[in-house]
């Protein structure tokens, strides 16, 4: 019945737009939250009948019975958690109920789009849901209609549209050899004529398109603009899950179950991954805008995932997916904190802040947890995923890349330490004497995400057995 993950949110949106306006305004948040939590709960039970039994009357409507593997489950889990967090942030930062209603509608649309991306087993459906997610993201970015918001949204729109055109072209070329666009058919076609120039061109177009979508160097120009210009809730969603689903998940899925590894592809992935990792980290060092710095950090972390993918081994794959999930958690947490800081202090310029931890202790400490996890300091979640990636690279013989990955995590630590010093640690800056902690709508998600990060780090042996090792069936 996994097809319900698309259908139910669609029905929910339709129901929410029934005419009882004031009731719906109040209901929207809870409906969205319920959708996210149910999805999270289901994803936590891989054995549940929901994933394996055939659809009943409602699900039959789609004529669509995708099979769900552990990679999809991890993605659903991440989408559910980040979606719920985004709703909370939206509740916190959008004061006007009418606006909030619209945002929540678009948000549910984006979540549905991502669910579709994860479920799709056909290249064209994948494209359709990528576009749904992307369109919802443009709207969310431009929502507050600020000058920067329009600029960020426009850049994202243009680059993303070019990327989807490339994916479409690739899809047409692949159809030329396969005759159909289901993953299985394309895989067979590629396997039967691996050196055909048409197929190679298609793969190249596909890769570039996905690199743009995932914000990888050298196609990363749109990402910092979009992230930093977006309103608080939208940047949590974008950074936490949207680019990871549309770019990285799709990349992993296509590489594993459609294209298959070969030497050239692996070299390309390793190179792009390492470049993103280093350039993202170096650029983040030079930022003074809180959200921009986090955006560059995102590029850098995405580089790690691609590196793990490029190792070409089971362990590398597991590391990449695990890091994707961890990144969804800790980067959302950082953006949640950024939202709290921006809302309470009214600025994003890190040079003007200082010592905010004194007034906002919860935000300060959860941010410590998040950045230590990002930098890969044990025993937090990020350490394990980076360790797995590095070990995988080392075992696959890419020792230089492993060393680079280690070096980059030092750079990560450096810019986050500078962030922590300028924003939270240190003496209280002038003008923030009356600063207060945000309300519960922002503190609850921050604490929950921090606990998840710590919990994953501590409970790693269990998680590794239950969620990570089954991923090996992908290869």
């Amino acid at each position, binding site marked *: 019945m996994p097809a319900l993950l698309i259908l139910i949110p669609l029905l929910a949106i339709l129901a929410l737009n029934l005419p009882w306006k004031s009731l719906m305004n109040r209901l929207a948040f809870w409906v969205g939250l319920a959708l996210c939590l149910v999805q999270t709960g289901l994803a936590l039970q891989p054995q549940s009948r929901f994933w394996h039994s055939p659809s009943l009357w409602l699900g039959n409507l789609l*004529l669509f019975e995708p099979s769900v593997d552990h990679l999809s489950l991890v993605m659903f889990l991440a989408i559910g958690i980040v979606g719920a967090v985004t709703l909370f942030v939206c509740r916190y930062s959008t004061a006007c109920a009418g606006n909030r209603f619209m945002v929540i509608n*678009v948000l549910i649309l984006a979540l549905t*789009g991502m669910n579709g991306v994860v479920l799709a087993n056909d290249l064209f459906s994948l494209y359709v849901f990528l576009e*749904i997610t992307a*369109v919802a993201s443009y*709207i969310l970015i431009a929502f507050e209609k600020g000058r920067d918001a329009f600029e960020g949204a426009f850049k994202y729109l243009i680059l993303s549209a070019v990327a989807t055109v490339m994916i479409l072209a690739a899809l047409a070329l692949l159809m030329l050899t396969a005759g159909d666009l289901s993953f299985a058919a394309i895989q067979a076609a590629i396997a039967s004529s691996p050196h055909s120039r048409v197929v190679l061109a298609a793969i190249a177009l596909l890769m570039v398109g996905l690199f743009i979508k995932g914000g990888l160097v050298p196609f990363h120009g749109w990402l910092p603009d979009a992230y930093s210009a977006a309103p608080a809730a939208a940047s949590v969603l974008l950074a936490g899950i949207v680019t990871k689903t549309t770019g990285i998940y799709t990349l992993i899925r296509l590489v594993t179950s459609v294209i298959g590894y070969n030497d050239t592809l692996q070299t390309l992935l390793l190179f792009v991954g390492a470049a993103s990792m280093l350039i993202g980290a170096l650029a983040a060092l030079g930022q003074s805008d809180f959200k921009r710095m986090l955006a560059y950090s995102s590029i850098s972390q995405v580089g790690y995932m691609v590196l793990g993918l490029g190792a070409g081994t089971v362990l590398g794959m597991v590391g990449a997916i695990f890091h994707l999930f961890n990144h969804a958690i800790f980067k959302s947490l950082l953006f949640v904190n950024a939202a709290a800081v921006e809302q309470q202090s009214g600025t994003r310029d890190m040079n003007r802040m200082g010592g905010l931890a004194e007034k906002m202790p919860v935000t300060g400490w959860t941010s410590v947890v998040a950045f230590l996890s990002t930098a890969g300091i044990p025993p937090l979640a990020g350490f394990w995923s980076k360790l797995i990636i590095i070990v995988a690279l080392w075992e696959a013989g890419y020792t230089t890349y492993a060393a680079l990955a280690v070096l980059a995590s030092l750079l990560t630590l450096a810019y986050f330490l500078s962030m922590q010093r300028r924003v939270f640690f240190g003496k209280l800056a002038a003008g923030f004497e009356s600063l207060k902690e945000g309300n519960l709508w922002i503190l609850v998600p921050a604490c929950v995400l921090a606990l998840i990060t710590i919990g994953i780090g501590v409970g790693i042996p269990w998680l590794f057995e239950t969620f990570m090792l089954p991923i090996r069936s992908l290869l």
Partner: protein
Amino acid sequence: MTSPLLFVALLMLLLLAGVWTVMTLNLLKSAIGLAITSVLLTLLLFLLDAPLAGVFELSVCAGLITVVFISAISLTKPLTGPEASERDRSRVKRFFFLPILIAGAAWVLYALGLRLDSPLPPAIAEMDVRQVLWNVRRLDLVGQILIILAGVFGVVILFKDRSDKKEAPKS
């Protein structure tokens, strides 16, 4: 293919229309050029036995999208005289290379002699378009519904006048 000659002629016209769309100075003419490109594409689609897609292309792209562009152009302020002439001068400089580029690329592509070097898939019994859309690609239909919803929300949000400016958080 009923007439290969017509097909090639239409392709040439399509390219010409495209180049004209890009090269023309006036934005409005450019939008009209786009509409003409769309019409030519429609004809090509008819030639390729895709009548339904052709009808869609004609009504939606040549019609609706042109309307969107023209209203966008009219909603935004046109340039003043000196600005326009300054722009025209720099545009000539910037777009001068396009025809050369096209000619060069055409020659290179012709010399390369692009060929289909992978086997075509085996033929199958064709179904009707509506049947395919309804029975095989129903997921895409749902996707269309979702994206239209997104479009509706987007248009409502982006074109709504902000009466609630004071409540909006600082950005």
